[in-house]
């Protein structure tokens, strides 16, 4: 995939979330949502390394991963609108959605809890000899959760085909990660599990793709898990209602100069800028089509509220 493809996919994620914010403001989406604005290069770069059958597990900030994995946009909007979506039937909403059809094990509202589950997907791949890998993303704050530690050690001793992508966006929810750990880079912890760990520029899809491909190749050939720490910045709050009083003045404005879409724009000549404009227009139209289609999805039948507890 080239730069234009990356741009299109990152723009799709950005525009999706901007539209989501507008829908929330208009009262069409209940509950809080956690946006990945500014972090789009990580799922886009990482998913370049994947093929059909590779499972992806994300955090509650996982819209970008779902979209990069090819989950249907209408389904995503409908699920977040609380409608009877083809994804989760209105039972999961933004922070817990999944799609087995796209090998998207899903998001998770419990910080770090997806890592043990992703380890299980890696176990299936190993024991069935499918050749698949399991990629799991977490935020920087999740590195302090016990479940992540347990799963990494487990994956390491079993040589499972697992790739952990740490999206370090500086903030552990609403507190600076530098106040929460005594290591300079979270990838340094990889050594504690006997695993390789790398730090990459998470605002550069090529850098992410190169590092994740190396980790995925290693996993596929049976050499076990890896950790990739992708450095990025959050352009928005922890959740939709976060006023971000804890962030220093000018921080977000500066981040806007470094975010992945702006970078491509800044380096573009007139010809490329025109092509990017065209992509933006196409993406906007695509998103509006999905919103319209999602609005046509009915709300779940209240009579089904107790269905699917058991098989």
């Amino acid at each position, binding site marked *: 995939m080239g730069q234009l493809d990356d741009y299109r996919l990152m723009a799709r994620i950005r525009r999706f979330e901007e539209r989501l914010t507008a829908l929330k403001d208009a009262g069409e989406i209940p509950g809080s949502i956690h946006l990945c604005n500014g972090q789009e290069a990580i799922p886009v770069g990482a998913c370049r390394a994947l093929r059909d059958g590779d499972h992806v597990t994300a955090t509650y900030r996982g819209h970008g991963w779902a979209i990069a994995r090819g989950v249907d946009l209408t389904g995503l909007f409908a699920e977040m609108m609380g409608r009877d979506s083809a*994804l989760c039937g209105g039972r999961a909403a933004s922070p817990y959605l999944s799609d087995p059809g796209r090998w998207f094990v899903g998001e998770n509202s419990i910080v770090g809890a997806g890592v043990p589950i992703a380890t299980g*997907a890696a176990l299936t791949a190993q024991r069935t000899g499918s050749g698949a890998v399991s990629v799991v993303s977490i935020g920087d704050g999740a590195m302090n959760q016990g479940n992540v530690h*347990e799963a990494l050690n487990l994956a390491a001793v079993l040589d499972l085909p697992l790739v952990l992508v740490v999206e370090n966006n500086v903030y552990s929810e609403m507190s600076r990660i530098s106040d929460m750990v005594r290591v300079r880079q979270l990838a340094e912890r990889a050594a504690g599990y006997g695993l390789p760990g790398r730090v990459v520029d998470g605002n550069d899809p090529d850098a992410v793709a190169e590092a994740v491909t190396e980790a995925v190749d290693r996993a596929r050939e049976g050499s076990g898990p890896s950790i990739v720490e992708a450095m990025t910045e959050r352009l928005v709050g922890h959740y939709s209602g976060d006023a971000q009083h804890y962030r220093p003045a000018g921080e977000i404005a500066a981040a806007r100069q470094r975010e992945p879409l702006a970078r491509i724009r800044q380096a573009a000549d007139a010809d490329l800028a025109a092509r990017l404009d065209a992509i933006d227009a196409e993406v906007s139209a695509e998103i509006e089509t999905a919103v319209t289609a999602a609005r046509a999805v009915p709300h779940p039948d209240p009579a089904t509220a107790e269905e699917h507890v058991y098989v």
Partner: protein
Amino acid sequence: MSESLRYIQAVNAALTWALDSRTDTIYFGEDVALPGGPFGATKGLHKRFGSERIFDTPISETGFLGMALGAAMTGLRPIAEIMYADFSFVAMDQIVNQIATIHYSSAGRWKAPLVIRMQQGYSPGACAQHSHSPEAYFAHTAGLRVALPATPDDAYQMLRTAVVSDDPVVVAEARMLYPTRGQVRTDAPVEPVGGARVVRPGTDVTVVAWSRMVSAALDAAGTLAEEGIDVEVVDLRWLNPLDFDTVATSVSRTGRLVVAHEANLTGGFGAEIAARAAAECFTDLRAPIARVAAPDVPMPAAPALQAVVVPEAATVADAVRRTVRA
């Protein structure tokens, strides 16, 4: 065909059956492979099925229960062993938030066909962190099936049922029952999930029990028969799905109900049975419902203290006498 087996041997036989009959079944937990399990439940399985099918995990219940879920979602049928039920508490996020919810939250698109096997209850000298009876926590959680086999035959049949089920099942055995011996129907067809059983018919009072308290209830019934009190004993077997019909039918005959469990009284599953009976059997009841349970204290280790905390046959018999004389 039936064989005389100890309870723990019946568990081993059920696991052998599961690993033999389904190649997608894997078994893991702490010290289950080479060591054969702390109670011998998995003795010989590693030698027979190899490290691909049965393997030891690090001491990390959250990690390996989450791994069981991910493996179940993607095509395997894992059985994960929690050595002592008390250790399940360190993994409650994976059990309650993850394993129990994924089928519902995906509107049925993911399944979690896994078994969490554990043993629970007191044993002489065991401290408060090796004696819990946590069945009510699991039965309280929508999405989990909960099985508590009380006999060697049920240890065999119910574990096989759990393995075949497409829902996540917690199988909680009673450690104190492991040495007990009984006939096990090794060639019986696999039973469906659920179903209580009248294990002793009687006319004067219904005692509903499960796990170790079933044998305590039967012992009490023997003593009470000599006193002219005819006790019906119902082994609930599964707390989820709850077969309340068998309880209600029994109470409609006897008019009296005693519920007996080893777990602490407050919020125990006995409260659920009592509440259901009060709502659904009100006109059949001739006496207040009685509950037999441990008092609300953590389990002491000293035998002299355990003797007054752990409910036994005599505790059940006392409750029945009070109920019949009420």
